[in-house]
């Protein structure tokens, strides 16, 4: 016999007292994504406060026990009006469905990386949406937006100059970031009024105990007396492996005996890690890149380390799950003295200045390799700090406070269902300012009718002003189709536009 089952709202247990439901839109393991791991951790802790459901694009994703995974495209059928929603948003294509969901289901959004340009570029958002986000920043940066609009040029600098977080700020009841630096950066770029709902909640420690160093080393086949330097996660350019490789070479040249493991995947298009290591004879036999690791193996590597190097430059205020694991394991953590990492207590980590980073890092690694007890002392201090400030129940409680406090906050409206029609006289004085004014307030599909007295006048106008539409349409307006409307209808140009959200 088949078990009879009724389709009920996610998270509902008819046998228990009703609790408030919370739907969390997020990637989850086994997706190879630090935010997926973070979300699994957080969901388990939030279950102490709410009946949680996880809306995940991977319907077979692994949520903590007792938390149902639902299809995000159908989550609206189970959400009560005004129901509690949490979005976990990061800067990679695996979060495209979260970005789309936050437009339909306003809630609290955790902005793991305040820069969202890579997400917009890779999740099918389109150039128009990117240009709209670029328009939502300082006018001095307009030339970079024009490079993209007019020539399709987008440099790596754009990822620092344009965070594209304006829409997320506007559509969220509250925004959670993991450092005061990230909050300040948002405030600097978007103004105090549009960021007054930004809250700082620290990245939590992983629950449970980390493996003992000796056990982890035994599993990994690393001898007890090896001084192990570890890096972890995607090997991005911002993690400054160029500095680390140079520093390791200097430390080894100065007599340090050490081994380096990168416990994570390469991102060769950003930084060809293995190739760069191979160029350094001093690192031969001392350096290893594991590729992506599952949670248990990653944890073992961190627990086995003497030093966890977690450099960043530039940093947009992103958080680091690796660092949290390092704290939990009591491993000595070395970070860049920048952004959110600069907020960590001086006694809890070793800060490496941005200026002169390589010699400073080489000196630190050499000193720690000579005196591993010093590394253990710093690691113990870091663990004490983390247990005090980053314990998972405290983080879940902080989330609960943000979610409850934000419930009544209004957000920007989502695009209207009807296609808006705006009409403008297409005379000789037709200007970009007039078009922008005519399109004010419209979002999503929109039609702009440029009305002419007759077709002859329209022909004269377009002949007199070559590239008329390019000149008068704002850069964020996506032009989908152009039609000449002839009598008996009113003559003119009918433009089908796609207008992204903008402030």
């Amino acid at each position, binding site marked *: 016999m*088949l*078990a*009879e*089952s*009724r*389709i*009920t709202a*996610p998270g509902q247990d008819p046998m228990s007292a009703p609790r408030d439901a919370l739907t969390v839109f997020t990637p989850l393991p086994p997706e190879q994504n630090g935010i997926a791991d973070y979300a699994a951790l957080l969901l388990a802790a939030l279950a102490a406060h709410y009946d949680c459901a996880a809306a995940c*694009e991977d*319907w*077979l994703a692994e949520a903590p026990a007792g938390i*149902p*995974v*639902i*299809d*995000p*495209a*159908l*989550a*609206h*059928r*189970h959400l009560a009006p005004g129901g509690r929603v949490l979005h976990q948003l990061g800067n990679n294509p695996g979060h495209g469905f979260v970005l*789309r969901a936050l*437009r*339909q*289901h306003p809630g609290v959004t955790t902005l793991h990386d305040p820069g969202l340009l890579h997400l917009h570029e890779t999740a099918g958002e389109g150039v128009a949406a990117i240009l709209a986000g670029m328009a939502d920043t300082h006018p001095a940066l307009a030339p970079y937006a024009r490079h993209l609009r007019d020539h399709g040029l987008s440099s790596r600098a754009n990822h620092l100059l344009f965070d594209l977080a304006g829409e997320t700020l506007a559509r969220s009841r509250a925004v959670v970031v993991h450092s005061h630096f990230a909050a300040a950066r948002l405030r600097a770029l978007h103004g105090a009024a549009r960021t007054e709902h930004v809250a700082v909640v620290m990245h939590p420690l992983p629950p449970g105990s980390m493996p003992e160093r000796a056990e982890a080393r035994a599993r990994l086949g690393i001898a007890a007396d090896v001084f192990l330097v570890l890096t972890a996660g995607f090997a991005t350019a911002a993690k400054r492996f160029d500095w680390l490789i140079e520093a390791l070479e200097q430390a080894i040249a100065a007599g340090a005996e050490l081994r380096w493991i990168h416990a994570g995947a390469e991102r060769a298009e950003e930084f060809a890690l293995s190739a760069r290591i191979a160029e350094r004879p001093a690192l031969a036999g001392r350096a290893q890149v594991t590729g992506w690791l599952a949670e248990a193996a990653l944890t073992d590597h961190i627990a086995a380390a003497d030093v966890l190097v977690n450099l960043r430059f530039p940093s947009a205020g992103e958080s680091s799950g690796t660092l949290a694991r390092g704290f939990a394991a009591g491993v000595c953590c070395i970070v860049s003295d920048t952004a959110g990492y600069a907020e960590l207590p001086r006694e809890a980590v070793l800060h490496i200045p941005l200026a002169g980073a390589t010699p400073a890092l080489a000196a630190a690694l050499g000193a720690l390799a000579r005196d591993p007890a010093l590394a253990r002392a710093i690691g113990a201090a870091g663990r004490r700090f983390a247990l005090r400030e980053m314990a998972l129940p405290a983080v879940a409680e902080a989330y609960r406070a943000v979610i409850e406090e934000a419930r009544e906050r209004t957000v920007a409206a*989502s*695009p209207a*269902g*009807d296609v808006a029609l705006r009409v403008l006289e297409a005379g000789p004085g037709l200007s970009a300012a007039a078009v922008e004014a005519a399109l004010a307030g419209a979002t999503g599909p929109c039609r702009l009718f440029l009305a002419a007295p007759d077709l002859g006048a329209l022909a004269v106008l377009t002949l007199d002003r070559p590239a008329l539409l390019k000149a008068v349409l704002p850069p964020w307006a996506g032009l989908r189709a152009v039609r000449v409307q002839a009598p008996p209808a009113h003559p003119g140009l009918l433009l089908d536009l796609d207008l992204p959200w903008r402030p």
Partner: protein
Amino acid sequence: MAALSTAPLLAALLRQALPAVAVLDAALAGGGLHPWFPGARCGVAAPAALPDAERALLGRFRQRGAALFGFDPAVDAALLAGAAAAWGGAGDRLVVLGDATDAGAWIAGGAMVLARGGPAPAGCDQVMLLLGAPTPVERLALLLPEGRGAALLAALEAAAGALAGPGWQAGARAISPRLGTFTLLAPALPAAIALAPEEMPRDEVGPGRLRLLLGCLPPRPWRLRARFAPGTPPPRLLLDGVHQAARHQADAGGLLLEASFTPAADSPLVLGLAGQAVPLALGIGP
């Protein structure tokens, strides 16, 4: 608008009375004939009136490669105009609407309209339908271009006669040249139906994920059966986005997946299949 309880009966009646009719079920979001009328084109007459998320969801589906009605202005306009190519060359065209308010344009284009409510436009013939199995009795209106009401009334009467079994009650009455009534009460609904997955609105979400739109089913217990090719690993099944318990067994005909459920919502039910499996056949029944 709630699911149409008598949709199985109504669909059987219309298939019998109008064997060559092409059906556009534009009442998908409010309980039309889908899935009881195989081959019907599905859609929504007023997608702008749907909540954003529901509109986004239905906008993802494709039926025979095309967007659902209501989501492609060019095709929608061709259907409304009665363009032969858009209707597959069918002579008789039936449009199912939740509300008759917008029926005028369809009738002007030569189509019949089946509406669940709202005022009928002026200048058309009308057959009032009362259907029940035996309860609830549901009232609908068939609206036709002028002069076609009498013939349809006769066709419905003949169809009921052909379908009728013990305990059926049917009656047709011409009230005026433009207005008739037709009543059909059946002791039970012919509720089980075999569905052709390739004909159904589908959303191929990505590798190993498929959504199929099952339509609005009355909120009572149902059993879903899906058959897959031999050797197919059992897929996970979701209904309205929620994982659903299912039993599977392999036999000579392939893998059979069965699930029992009671739809809770009035919106069109969505079947999700997670895994590398596309069903060869689907069936819904009590």
